[in-house]
């Protein structure tokens, strides 16, 4: 019933066009951002233009070797990183477009658009801000977990891909995550944040992928136990609604943990707790959730490793318990060469006890080499190996090998790893 209301609202409001959405979001940010932004000396715009080629020997992760789609084509990736920071305010805005053209397989051609942003403003005793993003991309890339070595914060790794990448078509996804951090004393603070995700699929996916909305509200209490260690208690509530499920899924969770500074360059965060979910007339067993995250930033090395167990929502129309391992490692080997390795691996199973159709193990390994011809010209070679193992559900698994070669022009970049 509620879905009918949501659909009616969507139909009434209409689906905004892509340029309208981007312009509206940009305008909203410029309104929210403080007035001094216009005169800010530290405003920085960093355009990055990438052109390259891609080869994938099983682009749709098909389980049948005789039905594998081999794609070979040209890619262009255009983005601009707009950053502003002052003593009290920071803003990051990144519009991005990725264009793909494949020879002989034009049905897989795609134009993906993204807009990412982060904003925070520090007041006397509180900090407010938000993270917002809009993705308009094909399901083939959007529903496949991709290791991204450019992500520095493990919390920004999405957890909602369904692995259903066989069909061609588009998906629009919003993510809005405002927060308010209030300092109670020198050693304690509370933080509330909201995480709103809304995904809409093209009609092509009727019966395969389902529009969904996932809203989670969370409150954290942090108390410093020493200069090196902070205790954290977190409570959360969530509501997941999907075109597939007969009613909303509601969940409540509690977690406790700590953050510890292991050294000047290394930090450990560990949380553990329970999340209880229930649907109309159905109550699932509470699930253990938690995460352990290790971040390490040295002069020439940047790394994070995270194990996360969570109850995640996706376009599959149901919640799933996911044990995920994410590792990003980059190392500047000398002035000219940077190498990196990335791992995204997870085991996903339904929240109920019975075997779900989407139960699977997923592994993606990435290796990357960057060769700096100059500060602004970079050649990048990437290799990704992906396994989507659905042996438990359907007795089959698929793997793919993907190679990318990029030529990057970044005329105003700040040298980084």
């Amino acid at each position, binding site marked *: 019933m509620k879905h009918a209301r949501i659909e009616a609202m969507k139909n009434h409001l209409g689906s905004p066009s892509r340029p309208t959405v981007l312009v509206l979001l940009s305008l909203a940010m410029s309104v929210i951002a403080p007035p001094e932004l216009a005169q800010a000396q530290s405003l920085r715009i960093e355009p990055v233009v990438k052109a390259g080629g891609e080869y994938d020997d099983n682009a749709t992760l098909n389980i049948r*070797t005789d039905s594998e789609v081999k794609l070979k084509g040209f890619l262009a990736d255009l983005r601009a990183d707009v950053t502003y920071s002052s003593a009290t305010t920071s803003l990051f805005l990144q519009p991005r477009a990725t264009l793909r053209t494949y020879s002989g397989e034009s049905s897989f051609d795609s134009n993906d658009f993204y807009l990412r942003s982060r904003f925070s403003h520090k007041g006397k005793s509180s900090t407010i801000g938000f993270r917002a993003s809009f993705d308009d991309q094909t399901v083939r890339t959007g529903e496949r977990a991709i290791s991204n070595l450019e992500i520095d914060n493990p919390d920004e790794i999405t957890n909602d891909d369904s692995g259903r990448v066989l069909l061609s078509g588009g998906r629009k996804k919003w993510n809005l995550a405002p927060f308010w951090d209030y300092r109670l004393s020198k050693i304690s603070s509370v933080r509330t944040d909201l995480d709103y995700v809304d995904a809409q699929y093209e009609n092509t996916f009727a019966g395969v992928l389902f529009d969904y909305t996932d809203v989670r509200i969370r409150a954290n209490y942090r108390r410093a136990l020493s200069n090196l260690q902070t205790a954290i208690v977190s409570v959360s509530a969530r509501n997941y609604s999907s075109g597939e499920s007969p009613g909303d899924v509601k969940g409540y969770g509690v977690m406790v943990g700590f953050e510890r500074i292991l050294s000047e360059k290394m930090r450990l965060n560990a949380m553990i707790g329970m999340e209880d979910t229930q649907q109309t007339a159905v109550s699932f067993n509470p699930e253990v959730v938690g995460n352990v995250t290790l971040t390490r930033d040295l002069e020439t*090395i940047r790394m994070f490793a995270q194990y996360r167990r969570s109850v995640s929502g996706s376009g599959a129309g149901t919640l799933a318990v996911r044990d995920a391992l994410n*590792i990003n490692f980059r190392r500047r080997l000398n002035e000219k060469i940077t190498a990196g390795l990335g791992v995204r691996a997870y085991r996903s199973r339904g929240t109920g006890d019975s075997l779900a159709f989407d139960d699977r193990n997923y592994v993606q*390994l990435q290796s990357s080499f960057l060769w700096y011809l100059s500060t602004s010209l970079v050649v990048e070679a990437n290799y990704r190996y992906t396994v989507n193992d659905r*042996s438990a559900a359907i007795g089959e698994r698929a793997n793919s090998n993907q190679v990318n070669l990029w030529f990057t022009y970044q005329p105003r970049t700040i040298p980084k790893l």
Partner: protein
Amino acid sequence: MLNSFAKFVAALLLIAASSVTMAQDVRYSWFEIGFLGQDVDRAGTLTDTVINQTVDVAAKNGNGIKFRGSVGTWHNMFAFVEFDSSDIDVDAVVTNSLGSFSARDQFDFTRVSGGVGVRWPLSHKTDIYGAVSYDSTNLDFGSFAGEDFDASDKDIGARIGIRSMIRDKLELRASARYSKVGDVDLNTGAMDGDTLFGVGVGYELIRGLSITGDFESGKFSSWTIGFRLDLDED
């Protein structure tokens, strides 16, 4: 064959134990990704008496990818993980009332292992180590004319080895490991134990980046060429 391999390993260990003293320490914090050549070389037969059908399969060899990582050392201890995934060629013959038909396909061979170990330095540049692990081996054939040859199991394992920096940029290593899921009977799908012997070499191309080569001999023999990134700056 095994005798000559043992001699080769013994020679390698002697070289390692007598190497010069100016080389750098053996490192235990790294990630490695490599191209994997995998030999399975197992055959099996399944018979369905109801439809009077027999399927014979012969698994051969193939290739894939190997990822491994190690983090350490804390009180001379380290933790490690290995992930091998390869596509193996398989020939099959299906015999039933319609005749005899041959087929050719590939199956997925996956091996995962993780564990903890401890090292004992023999010198500034040579360590011996021992480790215990939890191993998983999976052979996913899909289906041959409806017959299921899939096999999968998890169990414990153990390994010992020696690693030595015989030159500042050159590491030689040798190891032996036992895995309770190191072999498979394709007639029954049951896993069995096996002892594997391995040798390897690493050469540091640039500080922090090495090219590596490894060979491991056993029921499931394999070789790897990869590159290794050190997690520590020194």
